[in-house]
Structures are given as C-alpha cells and as structure tokens.
C-alpha cells in the first residue's frame, strides 16, 4: 500500500542516538551536556560540538521550549505522510538551548507563532525499534 503509514521513515537508533530514543520511549526528553564546557547539545554525538571534548553526559531535559520557526506542510515527501496533510512541523528552541524538530499538535498547530511556549510529549512506541516520536503541544494545553 503506497499510503501505508508504516512506510514513514522511522529512526533507526545507532550508538550515538540509542539513549535518546530509549528516553523517548519512557517519556523523557534526553539531551547531552559536555562535562568539560557545560554546553548542552542536540542531535547527540560522541563529542561535544562546542569544544570537541569526548563523552558528553546524558541528562533529562525540561521538555519545555519555544517555537523558533514552523511551517504547515501541504506537499509531503512521500505518500506515507499524505493522510496527515496539512501538518505543522516546527523547530523548538529548548529551555536548555538546543533546537529540536518535531510536529505541533492541538491548539499549538492551529495558529502557531514564533516565541509560543510549548511542551514536548511523545507518541506511543511503534515499529521494530519501539520509536516514540516527540511532538509538541501548547503550554496551556499541557
């Protein structure tokens, strides 16, 4: 089936990202923080991108942030997303600093504005790797 939602490109965790996706599956947004310079980073990797020190530490983030930008998508990348059209994708600046990309749901998707406060939540784990994708709702909906 061309419209099969299961054809969406779900993440395949690797050594860099497994801890992040494990966190999502238990309802935690996990970020890395450099033990040398203190910079928080996302996406996860084996080095700090600010100072190149190794082994950044994992921490549980607040899950709070503000919309840095958004777009309502009308033309999907593949038929797997067709049933969702139109949908709103946003970049959210987390309280800890890094930006994350995700979908907006509920009132947050109705009339998004840059700067709006949002809270990150997670879909139920799905697919062979038990991926719980994050999404964001308006702070007042939380």
């Amino acid at each position, binding site marked *: 089936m061309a419209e099969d939602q299961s054809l969406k490109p779900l993440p395949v965790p690797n050594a860099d990202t497994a801890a992040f996706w494990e966190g999502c599956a238990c309802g935690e947004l996990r970020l890395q923080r450099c033990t040398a310079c203190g910079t928080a980073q996302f996406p996860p990797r084996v080095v700090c991108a600010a100072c190149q020190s190794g082994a950044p530490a994992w921490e549980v983030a607040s899950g709070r942030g503000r919309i840095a930008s958004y777009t309502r998508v009308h033309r999907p990348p593949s038929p797997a997303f067709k049933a969702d059209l139109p949908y709103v*994708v946003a970049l959210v600046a987390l309280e800890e600093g890094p930006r994350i990309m995700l979908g907006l749901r509920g009132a947050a998707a109705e009339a998004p504005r840059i700067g709006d406060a949002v809270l990150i939540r997670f879909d139920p784990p799905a697919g062979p790797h038990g991926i719980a994708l994050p999404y964001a709702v308006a702070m007042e909906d939380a």
Partner: protein
Amino acid sequence: MSRRAIITGAADTAVGELPGSSCMGLHAEAASLALADAGLRAADIDGVLCAYSFTEPHLMLASVFCEYFGIQPAYSAAIQAGGATGCLMVMQAAALVEAGLCRHVLVVAGDNRLSGLSRDKAVAALAEVGHPQFERPFGVTIPALYALVAQAYMHEYGATPEHLAAMAVACRTHATRNPKAQMRKPITVEDVLASRFIAEPLRLLDCCLISDGGAALVVSAADAARDTARRPVAVLGTGQKNTHEHLVAAPSLTEFGCRESAAQAFGRAGVSPADIDVAEIYDSFTVTLLVELESIGFFQKGEAGPAALAGALDLGGRLPCNTHGGLMSYAHSGAAGGLFHVVEAVRQLRGEAEARQVPGAELAFVHGDGGILSAHCSLVLGRA
C-alpha cells in the same frame, strides 16, 4: 603576468524536459559544447571535475564520465556539496590550474532528473538530505526546511510574502528574454501569491523547477588560456563557508555562511558588492535568493524585497540578478543548476547574452548554496 585562472569555455545543453536524454549523455554533450567554445580538443583536457547524479548515481562519477567520454586525464575527482557544487567545482578547478597541477580543467555536470525520475521520486530523493533520525521522521521536504527559514527570517526582518514573490517575478522577467528558459510566461506577484502552498509560507511559484540539462566549463591556467578561441573571463576571487548540514543543528535560522563565503571572494578579488555589474545567485527558493542578497551585502536587511518590487533585480536596476532566469525559471537539473549561473555570468562578461545583456558588464558575482543554506561558495568573475 597574473596567474589567475581563466574560464576559456562555457556551455549548456538544451534544458527542460528532454525525453531520451541520459545523465552521461548530457555530460558528454555539455562537455563537447564547452570544448568547442574554448577551441580545445578533448586531448587538451588534463583535469576533470564532476559532481553527482540522481538518475545514474555512482561512487566515482568522474571516472564514470571520463570512461564514457573516452578521456584519460591526469587528474579527476567528483565533488558533492549540493547546490554549492557548481561554484565549488570552479573554485577547485581554479586552484588546480593556479597551482600548476593542470592546464585545462573540464568542469561538467548534468542530470535528467525530470524525465529520468517522476516528480514524486525527485521530491522524495531530495528529502533524503534531511537528518534521517531527527528531521525526516517528521515529514519534512526541502521546501519545508526552507519554509522554516522563511518563517524565521520574515519574523526577524519583516519580509513579507510579496517580498518573496518579487524574487520569483524578477527571475521570470529575465527568463522571458531567454529563448532557452524552461518557463517563459510572464508572472506577477499576484500569480505567485495565488499559487498553491507547498510548505507555508512557500507556494509553488516560490520553488525552483525540476529539469533535465547539463552544463560545462573549461578552466585554464593563465599561460594556457592564450591557446583558446574565446574572450577570456578571469576567476578573480573565490570563497567558501559551511556552518552546518542539517537545519536542526544550524547555528542560526537567520544568519548563514553566505556572508563569509562572499566576503572571502570579494576580498580576494579586491572589490566590493557595489562594484558588481551582474549577479547570478542560487535561487532554489525565493527565500534563498532574498536571504543571500541581504546576507552577502547587496542590500540591507529588509531592503531586498521592496527593492526587487521596484525593479532593482531587472536589467537597468541596481543589481541585475539571475539574468538567465535562475533555478526558478531557467532550469534546475542538480549540480548543473548551479553551473547554469556560472555559464550565464561568463556570457554576460563576454557580452554574449543578447536580449538579456547587462550593458558593459565587467564584473560578475556568482553564488551557490547547498543543503539548507548549509554550504556556500562564491565567485567573483571579471573580463580578463
């Protein structure tokens, strides 16, 4: 005598929908046209730079091309930097001849991504540029990623949908004077604003085309350039800058590496934006062009849109820009898309641009952007 590299040959194939074309066939056709333009034989070429292909992808595209074309140059390599590739190949070719490693470098790209892929397949293939774990799962396309930039830029600097539309109108206005352009029907700001949304605020006419086509250049060492037929064009300055690959990891949503890339090129050429007679600037989307015009220094922040609405990018304007019609109205066939801008700059500097000629053009600026304003490369070209 200056050791600056000289562009001695420049050509492109027909563009648009070319049934029966192949990726390597377009490469070969563009290469033959550029060699003829330079007055050189294939055996004169001792360096080859290729890019990438969607329809005939290969790990070693330069070797594939050289085998297909029947040449065995002393040096060949493929470069992949998305939309920055065209300028980057010229920058690399110039470095090779200025270092004395090659005399005549052939730069060639082409793809039949319109007739060789469905439009859906091309959109899907391009979307794979997104981060596989942290962007693509959310259903983003290349237009959606640029739409995120557009929304942030409009919020920060007050650009409007009309300002974006003015970029598309400027490119189309130029294309109406170019008999080779894929899209030649005049459009207005209202037409752009009435076209359907792709990813808000970007509409169909805010987006570049998908095309078949190929382009090639010959970049020669200064002392070798005198063997060739045409009026030479010098590579006066080059620059490059990468700040990120994925938008999710970009240091800013409104400040990009085009500023530093262009500053390097201007600095090496010893000129400033105000000296430029004609600009050919990567226009994958209207927002791409608007951000680059303001970041590079041709216009102040918030000024490019109103200026374009008043005709600043047209012939006779402050900065005639994308005189061939750009990616939005001339054609976009992968890495060749960025080379079309370079080929047009060469034609302008030689005075060969016919109805779209900028009178007396002596200095041209060319810019390519790859990824989501991730990788940038800038060229300053001038009459030699």
